[in-house]
């Protein structure tokens, strides 16, 4: 699935790094605990989260992720977007809640399994 399709399925807005929105991603995960993302996630390119702080972006960068989706209309600050821009990570904002957003992407073909 392309990053741009994630934005359109979630009726969301791409807030930064729109230039990579044509890139394909194959798997995603959802969590508000960065500890769990660091410990349990493998090769997933998209992180959905309701947590908004700079560590979300830094965690995504450590994990070589390409896209962060903030759910429940949480708006990242300019500072967070600047960090994401520097890291080349696309940021999407959506009004849907975590459960719905994950379900919609899964139904759209973006599973939790990398490279399958």
């Amino acid at each position, binding site marked *: 699935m392309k990053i741009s399709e994630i934005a359109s399925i979630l009726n969301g807005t791409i807030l930064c790094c729109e230039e990579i929105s044509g890139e394909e991603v194959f798997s995603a995960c959802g969590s508000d*605990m960065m500890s769990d993302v*660091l*410990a349990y996630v493998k090769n997933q390119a998209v992180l959905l989260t309701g947590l908004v*702080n*700079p560590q979300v972006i830094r*965690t995504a960068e*450590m994990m070589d992720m390409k896209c962060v989706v903030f759910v429940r209309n949480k708006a990242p600050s300019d*500072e967070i977007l600047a960090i994401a821009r520097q*890291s080349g990570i696309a940021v999407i904002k959506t009004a849907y809640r975590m459960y719905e957003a994950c379900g919609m992407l899964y139904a759209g073909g973006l599973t939790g399994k990398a490279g399958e």
Partner: protein
Amino acid sequence: MPAGLQAKRVNELDCECLSYRFEVDGSNFTTAGEASVQVKRILRRIGFPPETIKRASIAMYEGEINMVIHAGGGIAELFIYEDKIVVVLTDHGPGIADVALAMKEGYSTAPDNIRALGFGAGMGLPNMKRYTDIMDIQTALGKGTVITMTVNV
């Protein structure tokens, strides 16, 4: 600093390697993880394999966040050799009373305000061990902690 640690660090500094030093601010959670992001960029520029970079940077990131949330900040050093990457994290925080217990998955003393920031699951130290080839913890109560991690290239 716990006894015996100084010597180890001096040896690292004497070596034929590229070294970098970062101050990790313990008073400001907003900047926590910045040093690891910089290290990841340095390692990418040098051109190490992506998996090696990922392992070293995740391990350092966990350790850097720990220094901020548990120890009031500290110093992070990076030593780059041809065949290995060494990260040394030094703090003057409270020390770790029981290292074996702290290494257990799920053990955490982090308060609720840290969990609200997305950390404090008790997964950091085991994750650091998992992603590195060698991890050494020197700690003394009331004095501080020095964690040395090696990732072979």
